[in-house]
């Protein structure tokens, strides 16, 4: 069509409108008429239905979303905004949601969706062949995996394509047969599974863990393995993690953001921080790069990566000097005396010419004759001028006295008034050693004030206070104390502001200023100084030390347990608000106790054979420090510290059978039999010979997770050894350093697992490497519930549409598997069995006072006296009926009625059980039926204090008895509140206060942890019942981590790749490798979807400083290889000046399914961000059986750290895809 100029003129003239007699040049359409076309966009906005759901992804968001359905199709999602108000003068929780969540609907119909059950062709062919030969599927599986050629073929094909569709019937039969065969040949503890983060979708989590627990399989931890667990939290508070809801940031008046990228990774919460600034809050950012949160700060402290602890200790130095020594800030000192272990007494042990600090002085030492006196600890009382044992330490928790409280009275009721320091009343000053970990100097000698105390055994010892040790360790000079103290802040001795300068790169004046402001603000506001922490500070090998240093700032300033103050650690969606109901059902505690749960880091360490690649450390000349990591793990396992499955080198079912055969009758006798067998070395731990195929896990379930594409530290080792496919560690297995107590084979096994089942809705890295991929329903196709620590609500998932294609919800999948397994058990003839379970000494049970004085007493070395539950794992014999797994799966079992115990708070389940019977249908035999996901949710809500007021009241009453105070007012007015699933669907509901958590939401208050401890004098679940600066376990003494101290990041030397690679034809750089959480995905989810990929660069990238990049000839978007001894990544470079020199940031978990070419080094597909990492065990994380240092799943155990890594980067020459 040709438009004439005339026509255009006419059009333009038309628009000159006449208004009120005036000619007017206007663009404005003055009429509604002839705008009918506008219905076009209105029609798009029309929809048929809105469903409320959320995203079950480990992001801490737990956001309420509205899912729109139009013409039967999910079209888009927007956030719900109908949260209950936070009050007229407070910002609300609307909207919550982020770009990742907003892109989720893309997956539902995408080509990335797993639509049907899939199995690798090689395996299916072998299976069908065997099934033809053998009628009994269990027998067929046994023959299949016993045939090394058949087995070898499908194992080597893992990750290499070749999937074929199968039917649910066929694949479930295969899996069920494999499980039963494994149970029969090796034992149920050879079946393992991992699914993370129950908070992100509790029912889907519980589906598999309930199934595994019922059959006796083991459930792996994740929070510690992800290194999201801050081990400092159990160390200080005896609590896994407990943090303020994000709304409480708004109450803070001085907010330090330290290594957590709030806008990027707490997107829906960040506004509270932003908005608090308008309310007069000062914000300080500590970050090595100009991260997104720095934009919002008033000050930026560009700290060097991994040196945060040094900065924090220097700040602590300033605060102790100025607020405890120079002027004595009453608010701080009162707080320290009552709520921390700073006034507790520590015995000084003579070592050469100096002393070193030893263990806490306890009641038994000074002749107080009470039950568990070794577990009750002393302060120095200024009233009686002598030691006093206030109630509240762990001995009072378990002695039945009802005096476990922080009233600061001794058990007779007499008041104690602790002093913090002996400085004014010392008997003498003595030189003490304070360890140091940089350069040649291994300790500083500084005097501390001490008091002489005569012990009940007649011995006289010197004691000092934790405060005196802490102040001396910080190097705070005090009158009358000589030794290697600095004379001013400008002396470069630990831990002065000048000392930290060279390490952190932060100007001393800035460090002093921020420390002062932080403390001054806390003094003025009574504790409204807050520090947000996260992966940036936590994903390090020595993160616990860093955290203890940083947290000491909030403890010293009385900011912990105060709204608007304290630590605010956010990594991982760990908070299951509905904890009691979840634990009951997820681990089948309603049917069989105890379940098998274990620490994943140790499990993967063994399964991926990392012990074959260990380099001997520089000798420390001390017993534990020089041990091989595998020896550490075995020590921890045999002492009952750490669980490990497979547990023994025999089938646990066979062990019981043998015992019975040998005439042992009762459970106690059977346990005696086991102990005898161990002593006679007829029975061994599986861990004593991990390369023996029978001692390995055989079947592995991965669901709601991406072990291979996201969280698997030491990715290449996992591929090579656990899976047996082509993994490419760039170093060879070593033999020069072998463990001493553990036998390892001639060469490492490749392919430990017989079967790897992955359940997902998308083709993730784990899907690609699994033998079987089962299609899961998406979050818009099922019922479930979700919670987080960021807000006080429990959110439902509801289906916008029914599961698409052949997908099923996780609950339906495991139910179907349970049904198939029960049928096969019947036809194969595995019925009722007895199973021997070895479990660790658990936190929050009397087990935690099993090993007094924190001494390592190894039965193997010493008397060989084995006492299960004391110096050896606890042993129990349980009955299972494999033909009844399905029946148990879908009903709430009788043990629920008996008792429900969470975090040491035990209540009878009787009332809740009968209440549940009115909320769900009943089975034929009268049990609550939870066949339907909605009924699982009702059961969880009924058995949880946050959603059931009367259950919470029972819990508060139970705790009242222990504490000796009536705490029922905590739930007063809410006793009758009960949330049903329908309530949660109608509108988000605020959690009710329960003693399972340490803060209170009562009356719409913002949740802040430990406020209830502070306000109600409830002890922390620690040794002294107080917040711990000092840890006196022998391992902590040996590794010199009794006090918060600074250990630098691990040495770069251990990352050397083969020499020929770095002596190659191309320039390279060696840089510190950081893997913070990313903007375009939550772990590997979303990172593969087209919207996210379009919004940033379309594939795996690594960020480099632009001058660093220039030095190796790399421009923005160039292909590079990133490598070290652990493996190789092929990706593109993003260059920027916002990254400091010497640092590379590869945002976490971009997976390797999309746009990853071949590596030039390995000639195989380039790796993931974890190709350059490996597992390193930190020995102090293994400690158990000692108060807060006791195992509990995801609470304490070695973490899978990955930040202390160095990589080499060089430009790629060419890109090749096949």
């Amino acid at each position: 069509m040709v438009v004439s100029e005339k026509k255009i003129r006419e059009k333009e003239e038309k628009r000159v409108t006449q208004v009120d007699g005036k000619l007017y040049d206007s663009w404005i359409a003055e009429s509604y008429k002839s705008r009918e076309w506008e219905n076009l966009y209105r029609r798009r906005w029309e929809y048929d239905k809105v469903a409320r759901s959320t995203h079950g992804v480990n992001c801490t968001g737990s956001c309420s979303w509205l899912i729109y359905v139009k013409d039967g199709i999910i079209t888009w999602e927007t956030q719900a905004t109908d949260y209950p108000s936070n009050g007229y003068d407070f910002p609300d929780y609307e909207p919550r949601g982020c770009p990742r969540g907003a892109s989720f609907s893309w997956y539902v119909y995408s080509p990335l969706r797993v639509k049907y059950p899939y199995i690798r062709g090689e395996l299916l062919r072998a299976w069908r062949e065997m099934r033809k030969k053998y009628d009994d599927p269990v027998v067929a599986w046994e023959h299949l995996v016993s045939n090394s050629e058949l087995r070898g073929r499908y194992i080597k094909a893992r990750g290499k394509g070749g999937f074929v569709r199968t039917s649910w019937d066929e694949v479930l039969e295969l899996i069920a047969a494999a499980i039963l065969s494994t149970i029969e040949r090796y034992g149920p503890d050879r079946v393992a599974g991992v699914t993370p983060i129950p908070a992100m979708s509790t029912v889907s989590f519980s589906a598999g863990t309930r199934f595994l627990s019922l059959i006796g399989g083991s459930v792996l931890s994740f929070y510690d393995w992800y290194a999201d667990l801050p081990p400092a939290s159990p160390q200080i508070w005896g609590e896994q993690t407990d943090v303020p809801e994000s709304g409480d940031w708004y109450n803070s008046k001085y907010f330090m953001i330290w290594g957590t990228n709030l806008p990027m990774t707490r997107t829906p919460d960040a506004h509270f921080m932003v908005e608090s600034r308008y309310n007069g809050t000062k914000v300080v950012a500590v970050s090595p790069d100009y991260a997104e949160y720095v934009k919002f700060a008033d000050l930026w402290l560009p700290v060097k990566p991994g040196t945060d602890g040094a900065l924090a200790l220097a700040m602590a130095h300033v605060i102790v000097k100025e607020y405890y020594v120079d002027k004595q800030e009453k608010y701080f000192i009162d707080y320290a005396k009552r709520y921390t272990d700073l006034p507790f007494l520590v015995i000084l042990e003579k070592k050469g010419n100096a002393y070193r600090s030893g263990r806490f002085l306890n009641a038994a030492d000074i002749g107080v004759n009470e039950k568990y006196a070794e577990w009750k600890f002393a302060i120095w009382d200024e009233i009686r001028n002598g030691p006093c044992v206030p109630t509240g330490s762990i001995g009072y928790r378990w002695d039945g006295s009802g005096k476990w409280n922080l009233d600061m009275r001794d058990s007779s009721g007499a008041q104690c008034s602790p002093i913090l320091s002996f400085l004014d009343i010392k008997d003498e000053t003595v030189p003490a050693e304070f360890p140091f970990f940089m350069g040649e100097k291994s300790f500083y000698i500084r005097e501390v004030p001490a008091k002489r105390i005569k012990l009940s055994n007649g011995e006289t010892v010197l004691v000092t206070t934790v405060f005196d040790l802490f102040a001396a360790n910080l190097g705070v000079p005090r009158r009358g104390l000589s030794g290697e103290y600095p004379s001013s802040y400008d002396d470069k001795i630990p831990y002065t502001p000048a000392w930290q300068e060279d390490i952190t790169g932060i100007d001393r004046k800035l460090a002093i200023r921020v420390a002062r402001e932080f403390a001054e603000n806390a003094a003025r506001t009574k504790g409204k100084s807050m520090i947000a922490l996260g992966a940036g500070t936590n994903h390090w090998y020595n993160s616990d030390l860093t955290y203890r240093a940083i947290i000491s700032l909030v403890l010293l300033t009385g900011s912990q347990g105060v709204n608007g103050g304290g630590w605010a650690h956010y990594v991982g969606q760990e908070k299951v608000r509905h904890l009691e109901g979840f634990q009951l059902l997820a681990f089948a505690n309603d049917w069989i106790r105890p379940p098998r749960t274990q620490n994943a880091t140790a499990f993967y360490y063994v399964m991926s054979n990392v012990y074959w690649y260990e380099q001997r450390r520089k000798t420390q000349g001390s017993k534990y420090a020089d041990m091989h990591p595998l020896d550490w793990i075995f020590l921890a396992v045999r002492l009952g510290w750490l669980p490990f499955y497979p547990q023994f080198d025999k089938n646990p079912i066979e062990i019981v059978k043998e015992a019975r055969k040998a005439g042992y009758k009762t459970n106690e006798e059977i346990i005696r039999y086991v102990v005898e067998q161990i002593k006679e070395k007829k029975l061994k731990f599986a861990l004593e010979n991990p390369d023996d195929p029978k001692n390995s896990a055989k079947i592995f379930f991965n669901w709601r997770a991406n072990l291979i594409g996201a969280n698997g530290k030491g990715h290449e080792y996992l591929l090579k050894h656990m899976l047996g496919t082509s993994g490419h560690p760039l170093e060879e297995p070593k033999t020069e350093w072998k463990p001493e107590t553990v036998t390892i084979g001639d060469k490492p096994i490749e392919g430990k697992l017989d079967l790897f089942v992955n359940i997902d809705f998308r083709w993730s890295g784990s899907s690609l490497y699994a033998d079987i991929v089962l299609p899961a329903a998406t979050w818009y196709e099922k019922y479930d519930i979700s919670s987080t620590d960021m807000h006080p609500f429990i959110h439902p998932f509801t289906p916008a549409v029914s599961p698409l294609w052949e997908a099923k919800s996780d609950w339906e999948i495991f139910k179907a598997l349970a049904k198939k397994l029960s049928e096969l058990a019947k036809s194969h003839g595995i019925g009722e069995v007895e199973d021997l379970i070895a479990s660790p000494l658990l936190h929050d049970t009397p087990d935690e006072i099993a090993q007094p004085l924190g001494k390592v007493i190894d039965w193997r070395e010493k008397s060989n006296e084995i006492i299960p539950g004391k110096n050896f794992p606890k042993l129990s014999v349980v009955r299972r009926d494999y033909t009844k797994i399905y029946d148990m799966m879908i009903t709430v079992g009788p043990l629920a009625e008996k008792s429900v115990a969470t975090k040491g708070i035990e209540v009878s389940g009787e009332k809740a059980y009968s209440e549940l019977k009115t909320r769900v249908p009943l089975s034929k035999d009268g049990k609550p039926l939870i066949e339907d996901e909605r009924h699982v949710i009702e059961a969880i809500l009924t058995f949880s204090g946050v959603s059931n007021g009367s259950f919470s009241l029972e819990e508060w009453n139970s705790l009242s008895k222990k504490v000796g105070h009536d705490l029922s007012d905590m739930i007063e007015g809410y006793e009758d509140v009960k949330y049903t699933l329908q309530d949660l669907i109608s509108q988000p509901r605020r959690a009710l206060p329960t003693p399972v958590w340490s803060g209170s939401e009562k009356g719409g208050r913002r949740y802040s942890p430990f406020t209830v401890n502070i306000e109600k004098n409830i002890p922390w679940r620690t040794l002294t019942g107080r917040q711990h600066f000092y840890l006196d376990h022998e391992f902590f003494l040996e590794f010199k981590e009794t006090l918060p101290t600074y250990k630098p990041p691990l040495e770069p030397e251990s990352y050397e790749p083969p020499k020929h690679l770095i002596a190659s034809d191309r320039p390279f750089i060696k840089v510190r490798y950081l893997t913070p959480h990313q903007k375009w995905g939550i772990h590997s989810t979303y990172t593969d979807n087209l919207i996210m990929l379009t919004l940033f660069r379309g594939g795996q990238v690594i960020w480099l400083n632009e001058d660093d990049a220039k030095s190796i000839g790399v421009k923005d978007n160039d292909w590079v290889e990133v490598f070290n001894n652990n493996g190789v990544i092929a990706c593109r470079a993003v260059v920027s000046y916002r990254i400091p020199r010497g640092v590379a940031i590869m945002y976490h978990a971009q997976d390797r399914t999309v746009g990853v070419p071949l590596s030039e080094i390995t000639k195989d597909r380039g790796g993931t961000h974890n190709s350059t990492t490996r597992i390193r065990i930190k020995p102090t994380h293994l400690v158990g059986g000692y108060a807060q240092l006791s195992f509990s799943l995801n609470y304490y155990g070695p973490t899978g750290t990955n930040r202390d890594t160095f990589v080499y980067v060089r430009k790629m020459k060419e890109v090749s895809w096949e």
Partner: protein
Amino acid sequence: MRIRTQIVMVMNLDKCLGCHTCSITCKNVWASRPGAEYMWFNNVETRPGPGYPKRWEDQEKYKGGWVLKNGKLVLRSGGAISRLLNIFHNPHLPIIDDYYEPWSYNYEELANSEEKEHQPVARPYSLLDGKYIDAPKWGPNWNDDLAGGTFTASMDPNIEKLQKQIALEYEKTFMMYLPRLCNHCLNPACVAACPAGAIYKRHEDGIVLVDQESCRGWRFCITACPYKKVYFNWETKKSEKCTFCYPRIEAGLPTVCSETCVGRIRYLGPILYDADRILEVASTKDEKDLYEAQLSLFLNPFDPDVIAEARRQGISDAWINGAQRSPAYKMVVQWRIAFPLHPEYRTLPMIFYIPPLSPILDVNGKDLSPEEYIPFVDNMRIPLEYLASLFTAGDTKPIRMALLRLIAMRIHMRKITVGDVNENAYNKLMNEAGLEPSQLEEMHRLLSIAKYNERFVIPTANRNPEKHLDIHKGACGFEEIGEYNYKVAPKDLRIRNIR
């Protein structure tokens, strides 16, 4: 005086998280379909950076907006005749590389791959020609968080202007986010440029729309829009742009981008303006005066004369009341903390921005004065000149004042909540910022507490003037069935209950 109403958006850039949720929810609803792949009605730019499409602010290249020629306002792209000469070849139109070549992946490979030597992978391919590419070369947000470093940051036309003053290096890094959508201008160049007369501005709410039935795909609007916010749909061969979610606005709901903004940075509310003075104001001589001039168009909704005249001209009380409660009016007119983007383009844009604060620069080694508890405006990382280049045609004074006011609000609130503020410093600051404590507290409420119903004040569309609403009540939705017996019922404005 011809009083018209518009729903005005204000974005508080100081609160922007740079998360892009707005872009995605918008795209999901409006522009995720064949032909619309590269269309981002809403996008978020990291600044300094080239923006999207690349260097859209470079009007030497793209010829967007208006210029004064001999005192007369004309399109920079030329009058009707020169546009006509270029009707089949428009040299100023952005080409696909200025946007990006949309791509996807052969995701199917992951499930369907034969067994082979290497792990299967989904490879990127171009959505334009279907050919595999090794890697995308540019995208709608290529320089997110300063990705590309000096190279991409210095592509920013605003940086070019200020090159001498700005160092792009680690120690001095600064960064801000700029979310952008159609500005629904009072003097829209796109409307003027359309030969088909397909673009118009709605009198009742100011929304500028491209009529999808009338559009002939000439694309002059794309050139004329200085913000490059009109896109060409390659499937329908028509131009499309942000509709300001009119189906939602009509129902009294915020736009999707506003509703879903988790930084809670977006505000919507009516403003009354004098439509008679648009041309005059857009023709203001000195471009630095354009910002002030534009404010003079906005009528005081509390002025009894304005109210009486508005009523006389048929504006409902709901809208007058809305204009009084409008967060936009407060921020734009009363407190003067929100600014139009590039007023020098003379389109009189109706999306306003509160400039961001930023951490103070260069604190290492300097002893900071303890009185200045919250760092001061002149010390901030983002240069005032940079912000002025974006929002006030280079005049730093209004920007500095706005930032001062934000700081004054913070310090005033700290004085109330903590009290550790130096009295002298406080008084000096209050004096300079020139707002009353009560105004700062009101500002705090709107910016900090930011309740949903205070962020969004949107009177529903006024349908009272129409006839036969009683019939419409029962009949709307049945338009497809056929003609009603009553020819009088307009069929166009169907408003659905959404929430």
